[in-house]
């Protein structure tokens, strides 16, 4: 993965284009529930945040985790349990869920970042399998039944989340906050170092960066935001279940980021929307959803390794370079 630095002249144009794009997308998200089934949109937003969080370590950090479902799922369980059994107000339940996922992220990260490549993927897989079997056995998750009938409650005591529209805008707000944190991180000096580590870790070390610390911080942040997505999902669907801690969910988030474009800002969002839309509207075809997912997976690996957004960026970059060329 070689990233070329854009010529200075295009940077200004691009950031202006980026601003316009952001405004358009946010406006679209604001009116979307009037046109599309809001519960579906909320699901897409939760997965979009999850994929963006995953992208932070996989796309920018170059660490392909195969166990992110552990954070997503356990945070969901803890939030559901806190809201239902402990009777916590919704916002506090989410905070507790995110905290639990973050602690898990610290442990996972501390263990896993010592390894690279496929070994890193395997360690995270092993750790997340432990969480899965723990969730299968421990009484509070109610095994196969999941934690059901989780109350949505009132946010800050006065925003009634049982209204679907209200819930939608809260989820949208959570997504935007999460997305902003990720965007800020990527474009900070911290994000630049992360990218440098991805491209060439020995070089980053020789430049004096303690790369393990950077990787650990990125991993924990990613785990925390994945937890936020999982906690929100359990409130939206009023249910926390084994599906969300299963390794196939880890695989799904990899697929989402890959389709959209690993290491691009908007890629995971696009991937998540594409995949949830497919699952939703192809559900009537039963198992064929799995088949189509598999086909997309295979095609992406074989032909479109930079993903949808990555491919578009490539085209744009080439065109802007062609335009800029005569002037140089």
């Amino acid at each position, binding site marked *: 993965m070689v990233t070329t630095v854009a010529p200075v002249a295009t940077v200004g144009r691009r950031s202006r284009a980026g601003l316009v794009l952001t405004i358009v997308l946010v406006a679209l998200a604001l009116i979307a529930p009037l046109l599309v089934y809001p519960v579906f949109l909320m699901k897409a937003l939760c997965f979009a945040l999850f994929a963006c969080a995953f992208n932070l370590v996989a796309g920018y950090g170059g660490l392909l985790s195969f166990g992110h479902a552990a954070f997503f799922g356990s945070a969901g369980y803890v939030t559901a349990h806190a809201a239902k059994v402990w009777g916590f107000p919704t916002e506090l339940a989410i905070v507790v869920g995110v905290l639990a996922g973050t602690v898990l992220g610290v442990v996972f990260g501390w263990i896993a970042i010592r390894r690279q*490549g496929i070994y890193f993927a395997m360690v995270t897989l092993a750790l997340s399998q432990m969480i899965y079997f723990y969730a299968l056995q421990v009484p509070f998750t109610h095994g196969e039944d999941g934690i059901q009938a989780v109350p949505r409650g009132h946010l800050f005591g006065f925003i009634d989340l049982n209204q679907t529209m209200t819930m939608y805008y809260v989820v949208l707000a959570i997504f935007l906050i999460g997305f902003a944190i990720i965007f800020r991180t990527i474009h900070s000096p911290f994000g630049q170092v992360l990218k440098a580590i991805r491209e060439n870790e020995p070089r980053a070390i020789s430049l004096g960066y303690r790369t393990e610390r950077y990787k650990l911080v990125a991993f924990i942040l990613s785990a925390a935001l994945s937890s936020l997505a999982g906690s929100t999902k359990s409130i939206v669907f009023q249910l926390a279940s084994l599906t969300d801690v299963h390794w196939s969910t880890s695989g799904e988030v990899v697929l989402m980021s890959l389709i959209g474009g690993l290491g691009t800002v908007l890629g995971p969002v696009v991937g998540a929307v594409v995949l949830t839309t497919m699952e939703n509207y192809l559900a009537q075809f039963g198992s064929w959803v799995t088949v189509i997912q598999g086909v997309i997976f295979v095609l992406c690996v074989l032909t479109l390794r930079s993903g949808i957004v990555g491919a578009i960026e490539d085209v744009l970059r080439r065109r802007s370079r062609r335009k800029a060329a005569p002037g140089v």
Partner: protein
Amino acid sequence: MFGIPIQALFGQLLLGLINGAFYAMLSLGLAVIFGLLGIANFTHGALYMMGAFCAWFLLNLFGIGYWPSLILAPIIVGLFGILLERVFLRWIRNIDHLYGLMLTLGLAQIIEGVFRDQYGSSGKPYAIPAELTGGYNLGFMFLPTYRAWVIVLSMIVCFGTWFLIERTKLGAYLRAATENPVLVQAFGINVPRLVTLTYGFGVALAALAGVMAAPIYQVSPLMGTNILIVVIAVVVIGGMGSILGSIITGFSLGLIEGLTKVFWPEASSTVIFVIMAIVLLVKPSGLFGRAS
């Protein structure tokens, strides 16, 4: 001993050994493929399932029973594996291993999705061959003949594979080809063909395990998904690519699982992954792997 009846202890250990036989057979194929081709073959579970289904088809469509299936199914599925390697895996040989993981995961989804659409997720029964019904009363438990057969046959297959790769000339070429393909090619050996055949062989091992599993676990489209992750754990613990490592680890993890079922049944599924994480931390190349 610790208030645990000796009957339960030996019984669970024996059952663990039976599970271990499957772990060993499957991880063996996976290790061959990983060691020689560098692909973490997530399609392995789906191919194991195809082996079982192949036996089921042979029986229900052509009236071909268990014994011929034991030979035919691995050949058929092995050829299918060769097709997969030619069409898909060839293209990702020189890029990051992680793409191999994702590609094979996608292929597994396709295969399993097609079978699930056709046959649902509940199992299809496959009868134990008449010669192997009944069982032995061992005193501490009743051992069905078929399960004893599984242990014996898998040990023979495992040892045979180890011998083929570690002790014959063909195996030596194979190992050399993975170390330095260019040099081996220079000796006049067709390396790409060697690679294809190796993949086919690994797949055939998975299919054989599938045929052996059919009478025990029934034939179900999901049987591969359920066992795949455990088998990957076995390969990682044994050392990715280590033949002997996979065999020993496969059988011993089965035993450890059985032992855990006696003393702490709730943890029996988790224990494998605890071991996997510890091994990856302490000796990432695996118990029997060469440090890379």
